[in-house]
């Protein structure tokens, strides 16, 4: 990850009268072979194996059948775990967008030096391990943590609040941990918007809010969709943060899968969980992409 996309300079959205030549696929397709082979060996092949394993009917892997899928899909508990996981993703994505958009706007509008500093702050989490970031949140959210110390100090509460091992705490921590994934695409999209558009809107009589809602927001929709996709996917699969901040009693798909594979050696069911999760995530991603495609008209060449 580099600062590249974030630092992309804002150019005019369209160069009127100057047709932009479309990229022609003139490159030799063989250039993609190494990556293709890499994907085949390290992604497609394991995925195929995973699919195969999920079709064993029993943990001993003696016969094939759809038993594992039936077990998952007909079990309200398993479906609840799936639902809770996807919902967690929605909550985290919403919070990340809510906090990330103002940050991205600030970053886009900030003058040079401040912009560099803000970019560094946004990127910093990417440069530290997710485990370190997660442990930092344990310190922040704990009974002796910063939040509780502040609340107690201000006399807002008598006993420390339980923040760690709650869904709220988890959502907050995940939102911070995944923030760069939201902010970077947003900044890229925002910096591609012609600054004259906001001026044009103002000159036409629009206030700041109208300009934001009618011009800025729709035009950065592709960035929002990209950011949401990344954040959502990262949040629902964030095994480490989920288990350290959410705790052992809050069961999400990654932990459910891990439990079946690691503690119980039930590979077929673990594989079926993985496939169901994959399909569910793909469905969500497709849905979001559809929104993205609707907004594609806004994106400029």
């Amino acid at each position, binding site marked *: 990850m580099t600062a590249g996309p974030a630092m992309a300079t804002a150019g005019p959205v369209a160069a009127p009268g100057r047709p932009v030549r479309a990229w022609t696929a003139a490159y030799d397709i063989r250039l993609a072979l190494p990556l293709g082979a890499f994907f085949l*060996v390290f992604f497609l*092949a*394991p995925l195929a*194996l*995973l699919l*195969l*394993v999920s079709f*064993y009917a029993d*943990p*001993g*892997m*003696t016969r094939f059948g759809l038993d594992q899928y039936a077990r998952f899909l007909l079990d309200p*508990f398993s479906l609840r*775990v799936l639902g809770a996981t996807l919902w967690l993703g929605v909550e985290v994505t919403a919070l990340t967008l809510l906090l990330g958009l103002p940050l991205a706007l600030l970053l886009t509008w900030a003058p040079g030096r401040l912009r560099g500093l803000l970019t560094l702050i946004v990127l910093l989490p990417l440069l530290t391990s997710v485990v370190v970031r997660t*442990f930092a949140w*344990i*310190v922040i959210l*704990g*009974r*002796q*943590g910063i939040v509780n110390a502040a609340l107690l100090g201000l006399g807002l509460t008598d006993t420390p609040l*339980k923040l*760690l*091992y709650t869904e709220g705490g988890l959502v907050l921590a995940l939102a911070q941990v995944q923030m760069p994934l939201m902010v970077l695409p947003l900044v890229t999209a925002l910096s591609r918007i012609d600054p004259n558009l906001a001026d044009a809107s103002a000159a036409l009589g629009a206030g700041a809010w109208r300009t934001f809602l009618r011009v800025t927001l729709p035009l950065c929709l592709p960035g929002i969709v990209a950011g949401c996709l990344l954040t959502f996917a990262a949040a629902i699969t964030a095994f480490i943060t989920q*288990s*350290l901040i*959410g*705790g*052992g*009693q*809050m*069961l999400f798909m990654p*932990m*459910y899968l*891990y*439990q079946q*594979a*690691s*503690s*119980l*050696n*039930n*590979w077929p069911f673990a*594989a079926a969980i993985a496939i169901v999760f994959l399909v569910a995530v793909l469905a969500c991603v497709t849905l979001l992409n559809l929104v993205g495609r609707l907004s594609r008209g806004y994106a400029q060449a």
Partner: protein
Amino acid sequence: MTLHRRSLLAGALTLGAAQAFPGLSRAQARKLVFATFTGSWEEAHRAVLVPAFRKSSGGDVILDPMLSVDQIAKVQAARANPPIDVMLHDPGPALTAIAQDLVEPYPVAQSAHYGDLIADAQEPMGPAPFFQIVGLTYNPEKVKTPPTSWADLWKPEYKGRVGITNLNSTLGTGFLVEIARMHGGSETDVEPGFKALEALKPNLAAVAANPGALAALYQQEQVDIGPGNFNAIQILKARGVPVEFAIPKEGIIAFKTTIHIVKNTPVKELAFKLIEAALSPEVQAKLMQSPYLIVPTNRKVAIEGAIAKVLAKDADELKRKSVFQDWAAINRSRSAWIERFNREIRV
């Protein structure tokens, strides 16, 4: 046949490459590979066991720390030419490894130390070089009267202060079995244990995902009391975290951590020598010292230091105080318990 197909697939899942390119690992004449546990275990083994082994055997060893489940998966993936020569397991995974025919019987007859081990440590498929001890952990600043029984966890004064782990860990499962026993249950009947957990809910501050996460919660004073691993507590204590270990009158839960020669290892002789070193009174005596405080299993080791103070003065006392659970029985129903824990224990 069944076993073979299962292991083949499971192995391929985790280590497809080893299947595809068997020559990769066969190419060189290997050093001995010992899969120890991560963290403080690795540190202890690197500092004490490895030098002792080098001295006694003249051979060399590579430490490749990983979880039990990963050890099993890796060996399954390449049975004929295993990438690991010596495995270390908690009781649950040890039984899985034995059932899947991944380990050699220990050459007891040739062993100089096997006979000196406490009876419970003498396992023919792989002896126990140390025990892991689970008792009560508490924060002495918050819990003024040291707890004396598992039953203390249910006291109303600890409302919202108790921390446990889920059943993914040996610690969590062992705790469930122990409280089941306390209420008249057993390894085959944990119903009373689940009832007790249900009753514990108001007191539960956290259900951690693993023992490491639980330890961190003491550090954050998120929890003040609960079941805890003796070694993990000693490490926390050494870092200045206010925690103490107490022995419940029902007895400490002792897990045999067993060490095994992997079947088909090309360096069987070295593997045997490493295990011999691990069983030797010299190594165990050193590992018993601070900061490792690893509970020895060799009767020739005179127990002293913190272990003598907190746990037991000698092997007999240790045996008297310890409860060894039947992990063969536990393994049979653990999956159902985890399922049930998932559904019922939500805080």
